[in-house]
């Protein structure tokens, strides 16, 4: 009953589908196999991602449209949205608690970036992907912290 409420809620479905589309677009559509759109999406994400190719995942020898951290961010939007019904069933999230999670994720990403920038450590494609996913996941948790499906 609980999950059926979510998956028949129009707003939840709109967010789920649109974040899924955004995640696919951030990969340059290479995961979806539409490689002809890759160069258009690379140009569309110019300016909101540094797109440094040595910090970007490849798939079938094609570069994604965004770096690994940004791909983690956009993927996280879709994946956490998909699992938010389970998350809300297990954890009681007030807006205040959700905001603390968001601040913590922002801080972690900031520390990771600064540490790598000053040479204290070297992050990897995987670590940046996971941290990006944590940040977007916390944003989804804040958005749905007060929302109940109709």
């Amino acid at each position, binding site marked *: 009953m609980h999950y059926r409420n979510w998956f028949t809620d*129009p*707003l939840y479905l*709109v*967010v789920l589908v*649109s*974040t899924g*589309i*955004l995640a696919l*677009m951030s990969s340059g559509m290479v995961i979806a196999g539409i490689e002809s*759109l*890759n*160069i*258009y*999406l*690379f*140009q*569309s*994400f*110019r*300016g*909101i*991602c*540094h*797109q*440094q*190719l*040595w910090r970007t995942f490849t798939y079938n020898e094609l*570069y994604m449209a965004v770096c690994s951290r940004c791909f983690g961010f956009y993927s996280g*939007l879709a994946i956490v949205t998909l699992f938010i019904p389970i998350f809300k069933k297990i954890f009681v999230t007030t*807006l205040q608690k959700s*905001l603390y999670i968001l601040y913590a994720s922002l801080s972690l990403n900031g520390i990771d970036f600064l540490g790598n*920038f000053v040479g204290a450590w070297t992050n990897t494609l995987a670590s940046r992907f996971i941290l990006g996913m944590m940040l977007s996941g916390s*944003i989804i948790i*804040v*958005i*749905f*912290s*007060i*929302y109940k499906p109709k």
Partner: protein
Amino acid sequence: MEPVEYKPSYAQTSMTYGAVFAVVASLVFYGILVVSMSSGNPGMLGFVIACLGCLGIIFLPGIFSVKSFLKQTNGKLLIGKGAVIGLVSGVAFGVVYGFMDLVWLLAGVDTATMFMDYMLALSENYGGNTGQVDDMREMMESQPKTGGTILIGVLTNVIIYSIVNLLSGMLAVSIWADTSSDEF
């Protein structure tokens, strides 16, 4: 004569915020790149500041549009309405941000070429693979510039920024709005 019921409207405000922030984002990002390139030795810090500035700005149209609309509704707003407000501001942002590339071109700056030149310079300075950047540049230059390709470019811009601001609009409602009323 019957009194006219006042219904607050979000469309104009959303589109205005979207357009203004698009202009600001384009000026911030490409402005910093132009200054950095003209220094003769473009560095990573300038590039990072430009990207963070632009990245920070793309979420703002949805947030500011919702906050502005909340003043008209005494702080009451449903999260679905916030999503629509954000979506509209994102569409305006995507269209104007794409149009700004044309404005830069009229000012003598080819933004696509400049961006690739910057990436090549960073690759050379920081030990990245310049061959990868050259491959990407070749792909871009081989792309025909027709009405169809320009339309696809604008469409992808609009889709990306409208979804981003749909979410930022919902975020603004979650944080600042009273969602208990069905009125708005």
